């Protein structure tokens, strides 16, 4: 069985300060892990993904995430928040190597960035 827990439903930061969005996963198999971002009334855009290579994954817009197997975590970080980062973020897990991309979504974290 696979599941994802996003530990914070809302995160607020000031522009220019670091961002941390937390995600823990549970998987009976070797997982693939993803972060997606959703701006209001838009589809989901892939930020980054971990499959089986380096545990520190760099994505678009300055975001990165670190896969920590011992902690079953895949937290998303960014050194300096920008106003345009305000959006909802989803942590997602799937079974690595599965021919069907069945995804298991977290419930999302709404990021607010204050000027």
């Amino acid at each position: 069985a696979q599941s994802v827990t996003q530990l914070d439903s809302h995160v607020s930061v000031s522009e220019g300060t670091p961002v941390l969005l937390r995600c823990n996963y549970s998987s009976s198999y070797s997982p693939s892990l993803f972060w997606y971002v959703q701006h209001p009334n838009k589809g989901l855009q892939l930020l980054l993904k971990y499959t089986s290579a380096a545990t520190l994954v760099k994505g678009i817009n300055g975001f990165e995430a670190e896969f920590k197997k011992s902690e079953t975590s895949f937290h998303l970080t960014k050194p300096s928040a920008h106003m345009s980062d305000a959006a909802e973020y989803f942590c997602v897990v799937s079974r690595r190597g599965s021919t069907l991309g069945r995804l298991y979504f977290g419930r999302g974290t709404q990021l607010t960035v204050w000027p």
Partner: protein
Amino acid sequence: SQTIHQWPATLVQPVGSPLSLECTVEGTSNPNLYWYRQAAGRGLQLLFYSVGIGQISSEVPQNLSASRPQDRQFILSSKKLLLSDSGFYLCAWSLTGGISGNTIYFGEGSWLTVV
């Protein structure tokens, strides 16, 4: 490069009326196709997925149906809409074979309001 198109972007329909949301993918062949629903304040729920023409799997019992008449076309339908069908519907695709780590790419979404 691959692109996904989904329409209409917004739709207001009365209870009991039919529904048709369409989705097409360009730039790839034999993709896995998905329909997700995102209700207000909730995560994404997988409604249907398809691994090939005419092959549809339903994840949850509901008032909706899906069809795949062509390789890169996926249609979400209903004969009679319910109020509870309101939500944000997202079409998505992925490559088969799991080589990409099961990355799923989303369309821009369709807002359905049933009144």
